[in-house]
């Protein structure tokens, strides 16, 4: 079964023009990252120091990994506002297994399966209970957040075995989270753009009725994509929970919004049907680079959120204008 890519295919245009039209948002963000690094390192060369680059890319790789799953969810036309709470719960699960004396690999693998199990329930409620995903995940947010605090009592997990701290390890001199981020991004991108399953997600997000008419089992796909998202949240949790010697039993505030924002800035249309996970990973890197840049050019970090907010609005505006021009250029 072949499902056509969401951006219109126009054979008369040059390969370059088509590339720009398909990946416009990704190109814009890549350029923004380059400009940011050029400007900030001109002001303060220490911005390009190995330590700082490590913090920017490796320390926030978990956001990029979670944003991959979120992108798939949004491309299918859904949303997940419970992802921050789920990361908090899965981190506690992993930490407790790690200090219980079980083999370390169990502590690494458990979050993936628990994440898939939780999102299996979410997927069932969305697909077969016909409850909008924003309502299900809003409820799930409360359940996970409240459940986490009432089970742990807010206590921190310490005494983690050193070999559990995967995010601090390096392979060939490159931090493990960076490997995760690169391999998962490229893998998910290839899978989303070439496999029948990946194309069917774009088809559902683009037009669910047409997808159904084309014979795509929408309910089953919805449950599956939520479970895959759960697996990515589990992978993100491993990177997040193994960064430090302790695991705080609290959820990083607004984490779900950061992850959704990374997906959306990366070019995933909130209406579903378009976008790639390369864009969301680039956007996650851009965010952490901006946060670091503010410090290096001596702007109070309290302005970070205002800068990111302005950036969201500007990127979306630029994207809207670009699309308008393209549809007009096509004579519509």
């Amino acid at each position, binding site marked *: 079964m072949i499902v056509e890519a969401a951006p219109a295919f126009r054979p008369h245009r040059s390969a370059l023009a088509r590339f720009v039209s398909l990946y416009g948002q990704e190109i814009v963000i890549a350029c923004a990252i380059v400009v940011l690094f050029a400007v900030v390192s001109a002001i303060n060369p220490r911005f390009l120091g190995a330590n700082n680059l490590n913090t920017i890319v490796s320390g926030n790789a978990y956001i990029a990994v979670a944003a991959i799953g979120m992108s798939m969810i949004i491309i299918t036309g859904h949303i997940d506002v419970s992802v921050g709470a789920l990361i908090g719960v899965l981190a506690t699960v992993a930490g407790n297994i790690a200090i219980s004396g079980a083999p370390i690999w169990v502590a690494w693998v458990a979050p993936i399966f628990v994440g898939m199990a939780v999102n299996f329930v979410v997927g069932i409620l969305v697909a077969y209970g016909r409850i909008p995903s924003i309502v299900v995940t*809003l409820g799930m947010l409360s359940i996970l957040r409240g459940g986490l605090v009432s089970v742990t009592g807010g206590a921190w997990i310490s005494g983690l075995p050193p070999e559990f701290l995967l995010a601090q390890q390096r392979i060939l001199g490159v931090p493990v989270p960076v490997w995760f981020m690169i391999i998962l991004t490229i893998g998910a991108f290839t899978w989303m753009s070439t496999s029948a399953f990946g194309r069917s997600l774009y088809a559902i997000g683009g037009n669910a009725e047409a997808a159904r008419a084309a014979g795509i089992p929408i309910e089953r796909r919805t449950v599956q994509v939520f479970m895959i998202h759960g697996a990515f949240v589990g992978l993100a949790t491993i990177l997040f929970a193994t960064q430090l010697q302790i695991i705080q039993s609290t959820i990083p505030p607004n984490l779900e919004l950061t992850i959704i924002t990374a997906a959306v800035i990366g070019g995933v249309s909130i209406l579903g049907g378009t976008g790639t996970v390369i864009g969301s990973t680039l956007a996650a890197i851009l965010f952490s680079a901006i946060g670091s840049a503010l410090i290096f050019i001596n702007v109070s970090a309290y302005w970070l959120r205002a800068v990111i*907010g302005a950036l*969201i609005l500007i990127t979306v505006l630029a994207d809207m204008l670009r699309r308008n021009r393209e549809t007009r250029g096509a004579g519509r």
Partner: protein
Amino acid sequence: MTWGKLLRHETILAILVVIALIVLSAQSDRFFTLDNLLNQGRLMTEVGLIAIVMTFVIVTGGIDLSVGSILGMSAILLGVFWQNFGLPLELAILLALGVGTFAGFLNGLTITRFKFPPLIATLGTLALYRGIAEGVSQARSVRGYPEWFYVLGQGQLLGVPTQLWLLVTVAIIAAIVLGTTTWGRATYAIGSNETAARFSGLRVDWVKIAIYSASGFAAALAAVIFVSRVSTTRSDMGTGIELDAITAVVLGGTSIFGGRGTIVGTVLGLILIQALKNGLSLAGVKSDGTIVLIGAVLILTILVSNLIHRGGTR
């Protein structure tokens, strides 16, 4: 009256509220006392004001995630106008309300004029407005307001908390506007089918801009009451209140896709959530357990309502 009408979402919800009140008052004799109920009304006002206007927003098929940030920004600016600029507090309050309304107006403008999806527009302004609050305050709080200001958040009028009068007034006006006026009909029409509403000659953009401005105003009003109630101003005020408000609205039977919903439902949703929070804490359940229950109630209510609704239309 047919069974279908009896099984309306609001009826189910009202029954749930009554059951919750009975069970909770059996659990603790301090629950069903006038003092406690009035005090719960006081605590409900801020999220209530926001949820009532959020009902309009969601009925048009939109959403406003930025209300918590508008609350924080208005609260901080109220403090800054009064303390740092030395303006009279009355004027500072008016300016804070103006800023909140303008913030909502900007949401409406980006949504109508630039065609931003509401989720994205308000996700952006959620970060932007909270960022402004944090940037302006630099983590400093403002305290020491004059005594008369606390009447609004801590005082009473005819034995009832001052802000509860405000909430009841706003709820009644909102119910009349949404239920009986042409503005209300226009709100439903936009949510059911925006294109059709446009072709019917409704001023869709103006209605939307007015609703988002009202949402900003409600958040700013909640900010003034919040500051008066807790006697201080901080930049993290109202964080996450948007999710509480949306939960109340959706629990109240408003469709997240627009076109359906009532103010009565939202008020019932608010009462159910507040009753659960308070009643369970009096019965010795920790507040975190209550949050779990609210999440489960939200999902189950919509699930049951969906099943009945589908059975009825088939």
